[in-house]
């Protein structure tokens, strides 16, 4: 088992570097001079000052060196501040691998600090959606498989197809119109107030704020997982060991819960990782609809402000969360199903 985990960890490394390369290439291909974004008005600045800023940030270096600086920092090498070709002082950047994602251009604060502030809210949203999506999805899937070819099965199928094809933000808007504007029973936004309020967190109030966003975000997962569980169960029902169990005279209920379900649910476990990725992306949209104070809104605002360090940092962190999610679900799967380990 530990060799399997080690192997998967090692496989994650080239992927992570790939992600950093993509993020860096995008940052590099962005039009406009980064200095102009920092100083607002480059024409009024002293050319000598911008020049030394450029050197300090390493922007005079070729792309490959810039990438290395971004990745591992430049505090281990002397950088040339006055342009005479010799290193003068040590750099100040620690680099991505040591948790330094650079300074946000807009907020003038370290990107890592901004992200740490916002990530809990996003994780709260995505993990609630993951739990709701999985439990509802598995429940509906079982319901459909047990009642195969009845109206229940059809209903679940309709829910699943509809859940896949409705635009999340539109559903969010419609739910806001119904529950917040017309019926006035749920708040349409304002999660921010709760996270900022000092003292204890009011559970009921929080739940009220979470209900709609989590429901909207989890719908895709519910749709997918219910379909997958249903198909898996129907397939397992056909297999010999289930028939044997039935012919031994074991009660139907016992056959379903003890023999069929664990086997049908095995593959469902592998989708926790990919589902997490979908949810992280979906959260960007849902956070905007419900003004949820998470990472998604930070990124969208960063995109509009051309705050590249912030955006690149968020991409790397979001991908890292995704890679770790996939890793955990793979390990979980290998732990549940020993056949995988020995492949």
């Amino acid at each position: 088992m530990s060799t399997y985990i080690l192997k998967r960890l090692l496989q994650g490394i080239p992927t992570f570097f790939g992600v950093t390369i993509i993020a860096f290439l995008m940052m590099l291909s962005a039009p406009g001079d980064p200095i102009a974004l920092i100083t607002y008005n480059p024409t009024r600045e002293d050319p000598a000052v911008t020049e030394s800023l450029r050197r300090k940030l390493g922007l005079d270096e070729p792309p490959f060196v810039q990438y290395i600086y971004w990745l591992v920092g430049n505090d281990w090498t002397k950088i040339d501040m006055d342009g005479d070709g010799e290193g003068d002082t040590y750099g100040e950047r620690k680099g991505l691998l040591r948790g330094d994602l650079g300074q946000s251009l807009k907020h003038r604060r370290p990107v890592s600090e901004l992200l740490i502030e916002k990530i809990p809210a996003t994780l709260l949203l995505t993990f609630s959606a993951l739990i709701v999506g999985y439990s509802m999805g598995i429940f509906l899937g079982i319901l459909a498989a047990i009642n195969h070819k009845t109206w229940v099965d059809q209903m679940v199928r309709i829910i699943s197809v509809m859940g896949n094809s409705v635009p999340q933000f539109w559903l969010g808007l419609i739910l806001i119109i119904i529950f917040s504007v017309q019926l006035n029973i749920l708040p349409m936004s304002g999660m921010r107030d709760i996270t900022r309020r000092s003292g204890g967190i009011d559970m009921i109030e929080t739940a009220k704020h979470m209900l709609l966003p989590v429901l909207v975000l989890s719908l895709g997962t519910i749709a997918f997982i219910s379909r997958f569980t249903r198909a898996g169960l129907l397939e397992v029902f056909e297999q010999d060991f289930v028939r044997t169990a039935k012919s031994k005279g074991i009660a139907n209920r016992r056959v379903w819960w003890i023999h069929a379900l664990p086997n049908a649910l095995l593959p469902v476990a592998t989708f926790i990782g990919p589902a997490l990725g979908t949810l992280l992306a979906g959260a960007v949209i849902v956070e905007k609809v419900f003004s949820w104070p998470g990472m998604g809104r930070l990124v969208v605002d960063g995109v509009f402000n051309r705050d590249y360090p912030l955006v690149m940092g968020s991409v790397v962190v979001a991908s890292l969360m995704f890679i770790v999610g996939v890793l955990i679900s793979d390990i979980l799967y290998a732990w549940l199903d020993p056949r995988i380990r020995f492949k």
Partner: protein
Amino acid sequence: MTVTTPTTTLLKLEEDAPQKTRSLWQNAIRHILGDKLTLTALLVLGIMTLLCVLGPPLVENVLELDVNRVDIPNKFLSPGAEGHILGTDHLGRDQLIRLLYGGRVSLAIAYSASVMTILIGVTLGLISGFYGGRIDDLITWVVTTLSSVPALFLLLIAAAIWTPSAKLLIILLALLGWVGTCRLVRGEVLALKEREYILAAQAVGVSNSRVVISHILPNVLPIVIITMTIIAGNLILVESGLSFLGVGVQAPTPTWGNMLTDARSYFNIGTHLVIWPGILIMVTVLCFYLVGDGLRDALDPRGSWRLTE
């Protein structure tokens, strides 16, 4: 009244018996013709496409409307108002004509981006699966990497860097969307490569490119077509999501997505502006998915691809 003699029964039996030479595609068409749900979905998609392609000039002429004519005094008219069947938006523009023009852009993006996605994905999948070796390693690495970044994040950045027109958006969507197809095709090719008829073809000296084009490609085509309809549906959702975030196709060009973005600010006054574009998106995506499902049933009777999605 006809008399059933042994000979006529025999003839009738012969007619009913499945022809030996009926191909996978003929079978599939027969299957779809008997599948009412898929037929309906296809019909709705067809009508929707035709309406969006041919509709705008017609409606403009008949109702004497112009897609970009701003008419502030008549803003937020409800559906059914005189001259505006589906009402007007916050600038007094007619919603019906904007929906038709928006559909044109949204559907054009969905169709062309899905075709491009498939072209890239299939080509790279075939190369990677068939030739293997270094090139396979490279393509697999790109695929794993690209699929480890939540795609929306990449699209967001790309869209922010190059403010997209519809054409640029199509290219971006295709460049970031091909990985799933590539992985799928690669898997299929790896399985096909070991089959006897491929080995036989290679044994008699058929060139590699010919093996790929005439023996492997036709066998991955069914799954590719199924994937393409699903992707087209997905793309409509992605386009609307990007527009909603403000990085999609920019105003004044209407798309179903950015019509909703505008409507969002006025949902108190103009609920009809929220409802209609959303319903059109949902129905179109639903139809794409249903067609995909129907094709899967028709092209894959054994159901071996059921769980691959």
